């Protein structure tokens, strides 16, 4: 009996596991691309119309309207696309950091212990606090929060890559290359990088959901994007003032939409991981 994730059972039962996994990745990717492109095309300066302010969800405004009469659905879409963009940039930067650090760790024993110590150091302060500090240090805003998220999310991938590089480094053919007088950089480029490339790719995708969540959390606290940006964190922190008045739609829909985006990225990452490393599918 094979164990399949809950989300790709049933509907496509005629397909085999490989096809299902690929299909899941394709559909999820498409949905995210649509959200991103739609949000990107929307003009950030939404028309304000005080005549329709604070309206609960309706056919015209499926997510309701805010205190300035702006459509919450459009604001949410714009916020999501902003989140995806920052998340994308942050995960790519953090993967680059992770790759560099993993290779540095492989140089010699001292570099390795230094990287281990660095990992310990970053794991020793609560993530959110660290992101807050880095964001403050860089002057907040999109750049601040992006770099802050990037600088705090390399730890896991570095651990994985470090172990992987270590394993490849002790393999026969690397030993052979060394005996042929190839230098370390050549070995890293020709032997190690191609082998860990898929790991880096999957690792980047797995960082994505965390990056998005942390960005919105820090923005919610007031250390991320500025209040003028249409970010989900800003929308949710604004909604706090209207909760007691019963304007539940201001908080519910944007948060739920964020959850779905994060979940979709999670699904893509998990499925890709399964494709690259099939040992999990045998369980």
């Amino acid at each position: 009996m094979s164990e399949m994730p809950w989300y790709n059972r049933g509907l496509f039962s005629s397909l085999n596991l490989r096809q299902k996994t690929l299909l899941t990745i394709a559909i999820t990717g498409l949905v995210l691309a649509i959200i991103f492109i739609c949000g990107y095309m929307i003009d950030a300066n939404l028309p304000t119309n005080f005549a329709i302010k604070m309206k609960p969800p309706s056919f015209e405004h499926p997510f309701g309207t805010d205190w300035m009469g702006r459509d919450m659905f459009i604001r949410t879409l714009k916020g999501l696309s902003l989140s995806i963009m920052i998340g994308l940039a942050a995960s790519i930067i953090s993967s680059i950091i992770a790759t560099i650090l993993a290779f540095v760790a492989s140089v010699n024993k001292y570099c390795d212990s230094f990287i281990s110590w660095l990992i310990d150091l970053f794991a020793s302060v609560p993530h959110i606090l660290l992101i807050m500090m880095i964001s403050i240090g860089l002057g907040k805003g999109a750049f601040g929060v992006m770099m802050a998220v990037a600088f705090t999310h390399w730890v896991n991938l570095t651990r994985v890559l470090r172990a992987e590089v270590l394993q490849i480094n002790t393999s026969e053919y690397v030993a052979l290359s060394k005996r042929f007088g190839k230098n370390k950089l050549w070995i890293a480029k020709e032997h190690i990088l191609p082998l860990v490339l898929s790991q880096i790719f999957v690792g980047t995708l797995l960082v994505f959901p965390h990056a998005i969540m942390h960005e919105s959390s820090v923005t919610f606290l007031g250390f991320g994007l500025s209040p003028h940006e249409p970010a989900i964190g800003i929308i949710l922190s604004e909604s706090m003032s209207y909760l007691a008045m019963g304007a539940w739609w201001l908080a519910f829909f944007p948060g739920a939409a964020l959850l779905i985006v994060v979940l979709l990225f999670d699904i893509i990452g998990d499925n890709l991981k399964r494709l690259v490393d099939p040992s999990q599918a045998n369980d």
Partner: protein
Amino acid sequence: MVKINNKKLAKFLGFKAIRLLILLIVIAAISFIMIQLSPIDPVKAYLGQRIVSQEQLAIMGEYWGTNLSLGERVMGWLQTLASGSMGFSLIYRVPVTEVIMQKFTASFTLMIVSWIISAVVGFGLGVIAGAKEGTWIDKAIKTYCYILQSTPTFWIGLVFLMVFSVYLGWFPIGLSVPIGQLSDTVTFWQWLYRLILPAITLSIVGIASLTMYTRDKLISVKKSDYFLFAQARGESFWGIIKNHGIRNILLPAITIQFLSFNELFGGTILVEQVFAYPGIGQATVAAGLRSDVPLLLGIVIISAIFVFMGNLIADLIYKYVDPRLRGDDDE
């Protein structure tokens, strides 16, 4: 039952203490430099939209130390540290240690309560899901965890507030102390009543990760040779889960729960902000937004110690409770 070699323990703790000291120095230094390099002007951040005269601005600059050069600020900070204090909080206008003591105590109860909830519920759900792997109950638990892991903590808090406080009216909106009452006159029940919602919110994310961990561990135990052998000996399924499964996953689960202090502290910051719970999390946000550097540094240090303690306990459990490691006398 547990034999502890005192000499070995002392050596181990001494080693850890030195590590902690180095860690704190590095963290404090990095944090300090990072805040000092920030392009954000604390005086402007404090004032926000308010307009003040030049004289007032100068006074405030002196109060915040923005009129000093970077070198002078570093010296000043080192002097305060050398005198054994963490300095004065700029926004609360009392010593940083006092603010932290008071706020951290409030947060500590919140964190411990939710930590215990997530440990008990998470472990229980994990054992059920792992034992019943592949059944609908496993799938339900897995789906629940999967969704929760993708949910921002503060949004769960917001939804709880909307449902239980605004719609159902069971709990007050925000504030851990009833308005017009001093915090020390609050009765235990009032306090507990206001703790419920934040504690549950905070525990939810912890539950998800512990459940998944416990489930995976139990499944790998189920694949182990000793589980197979216990089955081959005709022991009952739940008997094996109890005698061999839980016996082998309890220790790693407790360890992982102690290692979660990092996320716990981070979660507290968000949850306190949503529920207006006057603890260390709110102090952190206030200190960060209004550039209260001494307080922020103090909080970074206390949070690092908190996380370190969690890791230390996890280490100790492994070293002194697991019989496989207990016997080893060499480091």
